[in-house]
């Protein structure tokens, strides 16, 4: 009975992750995309706490807390600061229009459910239903990186991808060991900072952050 409730609560917490990533795909403003990423990370932190509670894994509380500090507060703050600072046109500028992007994303979600079926049989943790969602997040993150012109959106795509991988670790093994998880958070934070600074410099030098203008090195 308790196990069933746990599963239902976890499912309830997993679905918004997908919905939020779809909303980012459909979003046409950079600032709003970053805020949606913040919600997704907060959702992930909640999931961490829930899993930690049901499985009596206390290290997951720490992981959830770190998610809140780094992915909900620090990284979005840095990104929003840089977006404001460079005063770039706020439009995302999609290479593929929003309707077709959404259809492609839906197909990617279907693909993730289809491909993870054989693996799910070999998993024994309570969170295993998150695995297809995590793969979907990785694929959607990649799709955002490919389909958007603005450099900031590539960072957002990368971050969504990382959320997916984080979820995959949660889904298969209840998260990596705490020390490893800590290091990953550290890398993520420093990486986002460095990318942010690079975007700033790129904007200063090129007077644009459209990545399709970054094509001078060839051969």
């Amino acid at each position, binding site marked *: 009975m308790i196990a069933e409730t746990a599963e239902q609560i976890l499912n309830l917490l997993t679905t918004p992750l997908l919905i939020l990533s779809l909303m980012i795909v459909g979003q046409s403003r950079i600032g709003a995309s970053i805020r949606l990423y913040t919600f997704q990370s907060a959702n992930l932190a909640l999931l961490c706490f829930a899993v930690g509670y049901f499985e009596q894994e206390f290290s997951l509380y720490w992981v959830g807390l770190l998610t809140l500090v780094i992915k909900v507060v620090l990284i979005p703050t840095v990104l929003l600061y840089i977006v404001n600072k460079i005063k770039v046109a706020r439009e995302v500028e999609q290479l593929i229009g929003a309707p077709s992007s959404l259809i492609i994303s839906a197909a990617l979600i279907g693909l993730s459910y289809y491909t993870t079926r054989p*693996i799910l049989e*070999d*998993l024994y943790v309570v969170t295993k239903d998150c695995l297809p969602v995590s793969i979907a997040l*990785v694929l959607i993150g*990649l799709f955002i*990186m490919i389909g958007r012109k603005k*450099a900031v959106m*590539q960072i957002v795509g*990368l971050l969504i*991808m*990382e959320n997916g*991988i984080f979820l*995959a*670790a949660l889904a*298969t*093994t*209840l998260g*990596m*060991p705490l*020390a*490893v998880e800590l*290091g*990953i958070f*550290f*890398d993520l934070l*420093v*990486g986002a900072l*460095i*990318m942010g600074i*690079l975007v700033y*410099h*790129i904007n200063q*030098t*090129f007077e644009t952050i459209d*990545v399709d203008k*970054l*094509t*001078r*090195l060839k*051969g």
Partner: protein
Amino acid sequence: MLLTFLLFTPLITGILCGLLSQKKALDGLNIMGAGVVLSLGLGVFQKVLVQGVITESETSRVSFLALRADALSAILILIISILGFLTAVYSVGYMGREIEENLMDLGKLRRYYLLFHLFIFTMLLVCMTDNLGILWIAIEATTLASAFLVAFYGHEHALEAAWKYIILCTVGIAFALFGTIFVYLASINLSDTAEPMKYALNWSYLTRVASQLDPKFMKLAFLFILVGYGTKAGLAPMHTWLPDAHSQAPTPISALLSGVLLNCALYGLIRFHILISQSVGPDFSGRLLLLFGIFSLAIATPFILVQNNYKRLLAYSSIEHMGIITTGLGFTGALGIYGAILHLFNHAMTKALMFLTLGNVRLKYKTTKIDKLRGGLLHVMPVTGSLLLIGALGLAGVPPFSIFLSEFTILSAGFSYIEGPGRISLIFSLLLLSFITCIFAGLIYHVAKMAFGTPLEKVVRGEGSLWTLVPLGVLVLFIGFMGFHIPEDLHTMILKTVEILGGHDTMVLFQRK
């Protein structure tokens, strides 16, 4: 304590460099730090030679933060500490010259040394950690530490290169994290208790249980790892960031990126290759390595033949040599692995020599275009010019230089590979041979165009400072001497590495009398 000291020396040196503000003090500290790393690195090498494996951890139990060095790590540590020291010495001359010409200021020099030593620190961590999760973190950290070094000059090209570098490598490495998660999954599935073990990602634990790991997960893991660490190692088709980053970074950094960083990424790949070989047999991962190796050679060849930028020429040559090493590993026999590991060392030394000599050329001519030099380097810079020629011959695989020896070993492994479907390895060996030949022609053509001929009249004859010449001399000694004789210690160490990689079968071949 040796490993801990070795690991933290560059970190402390880097931080101290960030605090200093005088050029002399910065240069001194830089060389001192790199010198300590060199001596400790040699110390670790000797200790591993005697003891086989050294481990250090903060507690007496198995710890996931433990440091560990076996033969494979020792070879990497040797390469990092030698090239780290030589490039640190070279940097004093190179960066000093740029300051004299007002191309940069003291603040930038401080940042350069800070990042330089942090970069060394992350690379040392890659080959000294016992935990495959930390290994991932360290490899990602090498990208982060070197991203600003690639963007160092801050102009359009450098920024574009740095952006491509950090985005492509981070995405690539993200896949490797996925692979690591699958290995972790396979590892904790072994335990009968429900609680995940803290040391389930530790190398010292995984090697003991490798043969029981679930082949299904391990195969899946290796595909992700290959794409992930393969991106960082510059294997085609994930190599596109490499020529940009290697050509835009300051020259001493290019030498480190090509000579050391690629090897560190390859080191991560090799670790997983060992595990997967023990779990599902060597053919699965070996075949994949073979395929990617040859494909890298195939991609690199045309770009080398038509290249007009000498730094990009060397970058594509790095892709080629990474391809050769992976091909050697893919032949899976002891001979192939021996050749591959030897090639790892030889390529690092030769490529560093090439980058550093061409750095002297760049300091003089301020261009990286081959046709703008108009030849005549041998007249203008007799020492640098002749070293460049020797380096190019060595890099192209001409006897009696060291790369000839390792390429020959790999090829003979390929042609004599009898177990399994021999015809495949025969075809791959023929392909390898023909690509190496084409690249030989391209490389020698371009370098001869630079070295010979009559120079432009306005160019003043003369060499740079001794700082930028002495390291080259040391490297030439390495590639010349090792063409005739592999030092006994290195030979023993490579044999131990071959053993770690599971090449017991033909060990007999190597018994020296």
